[in-house]
């Protein structure tokens, strides 16, 4: 059974179509990364899955519940970790978890809170107000709050946005542990590395649609080949190199101050200058080629 099934889902906000005929199926037990640039419709998709937004067209099923009619029952079996920190900052860590354990009708609130505190490694800080915690601790608490009822499915909306690399790595470890335990995870992100490290499969989303989906390795092989050559230099030179590469049918994308010739292993006859930095093709190459957006 698929944990999530979306068929032809459309969501409009006035003249803007945020989700445009989205088809998405997430089998149970995998971590699917929704990778897309800002404004691709990822957060709207998350809100559709919790019933906090109602689709204008299409069919949605979550954990075998029809949405929006059975959204409340579906929410009971899923956990949500939002992009924005919406913890109660004056309240203790323990009370933040206890409130949500009650909202999720957990029979033994105390035991659920203890377990969540252990997961977030916050047992020693249980009596502290949230505004006394560091940014990383708050994020871990937010994750623990979404897991306090041991959901079958967890929605992570940009789980590490705005965090420094060390905290991001800490959270990745926590999320990876969840994945290992067989919890189904749908994770929206615009961080390439996050998708690459955590997701079993990646769906690249742009303008409200899934434009490619496979494992990271398959996506790279299908869209970026094996190698990418990065060429640095003054703009005139980059323009010249780009023209030669494109004449040979190679995809070229901007890469900060350089240009990247994707699939450079297929180049011949000087399309790749000798001073180019050749590296293995990456998911970032795929992302930029498919969406036209700069990667983060």
């Amino acid at each position: 059974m698929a944990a999530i099934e979306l068929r032809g889902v459309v969501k409009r906000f006035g003249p803007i179509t945020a989700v445009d005929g989205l088809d998405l199926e997430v089998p149970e037990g995998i971590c699917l990364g929704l990778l897309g640039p800002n404004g691709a419709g990822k957060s709207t998709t998350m809100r559709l899955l919790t019933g906090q937004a109602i689709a204008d067209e299409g069919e949605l099923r979550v954990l075998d519940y029809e949405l929006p009619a059975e959204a409340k029952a579906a929410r009971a079996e899923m956990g949500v970790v939002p992009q924005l920190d919406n913890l109660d900052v004056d309240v203790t860590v323990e009370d933040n978890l206890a409130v949500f354990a009650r909202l999720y009708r957990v029979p033994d609130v105390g035991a659920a809170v203890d377990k969540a505190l252990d997961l977030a490694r916050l047992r020693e800080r249980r009596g502290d107000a949230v505004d006394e915690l560091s940014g990383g601790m708050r994020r871990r608490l937010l994750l623990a709050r979404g897991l306090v009822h041991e959901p079958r499915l967890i929605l992570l909306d940009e789980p590490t946005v705005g965090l420094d690399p060390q905290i991001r790595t800490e959270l990745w470890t926590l999320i990876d542990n969840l994945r290992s335990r067989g919890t189904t995870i749908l994770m929206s992100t615009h961080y390439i590395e996050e998708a690459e490290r955590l997701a079993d499969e990646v769906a690249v989303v742009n303008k409200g649609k899934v434009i490619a989906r496979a494992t990271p390795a398959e996506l790279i092989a299908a869209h970026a080949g094996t190698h990418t050559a990065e060429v640095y230099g003054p703009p005139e030179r980059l323009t010249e190199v780009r023209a030669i590469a494109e004449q040979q049918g190679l995809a070229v994308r901007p890469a900060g101050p350089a240009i990247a010739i994707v699939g450079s292993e297929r180049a011949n006859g000087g399309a790749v200058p000798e001073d180019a930095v050749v590296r293995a093709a990456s998911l970032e190459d795929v992302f930029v080629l498919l969406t036209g957006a700069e990667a983060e």
Partner: protein
Amino acid sequence: MSSGTTAKLRRLEPAAIAGIMSREVANFRTYWKGTTFSSILEPIVYLLAFGLGLSATLVDEVNGVPYIQFVGTGMVATAVIFSSALPAMFGTFVKHRFQNTYDAILAAPVDVEELVTAEMLWIALRSGTYGCVPLLVTIGFGLDPAWGMLLVPFFCFATALGFAGFGIAMAATVAKIDQFNYVTALCITPLFLVAGTFFPIEGLPEGFQIVAQLNPLHQLVELVRGGAFGFEPVDIARFAFLVGFALLTWRIAINRMQNRLID
């Protein structure tokens, strides 16, 4: 959660409402001292200013009731509107727009109807309690205790429910927080002034008297005075009016919040 529990999910679940109220209680524990202090101090200041000040210079009594007791019993309505409508307006707006609290709650198995109901009940419980403080203070200023006063918390609760619904509906309607100035100036202040707290509405022009009968605060003032000085049969209709007001604003608040919270 087991699928057995999931199957039982229905409208207005007590567990969902209690869960949301437990969040309010957890927050209240962090700010109750300040709220309680101002709730006690404010009626004392009003009673000293209006009750003692006016009764010493201009008014001895109204309808046979010492003026300080007349104002003291009326102040219950003031306490109720200021501890229900205003927290409902500002609290709801802040939780929705700045703290994203409702996004978190609605990601759990809770719907907007339960959310609004729980918020109204919490505000009404708090306001129903604080609304009684002016009455207790007035007893300290010489008002004789009466058995009817035991019903005052229920009158306050019903009125506060209505104004909590009103405040939540306003919070879901305004675009910016400073638009509450219009609500306060055009609704709350006139309701407060023509409630019969400081002067009997019989002294107003007839048109104002008719409008005052539609003012829930006036009905509350009359009920509190009934509790202190003796009920009349019409008080049953007054209480029914307050219950009707609460039911009406409850449904309006749910409708407005549904539009605001669900895209």
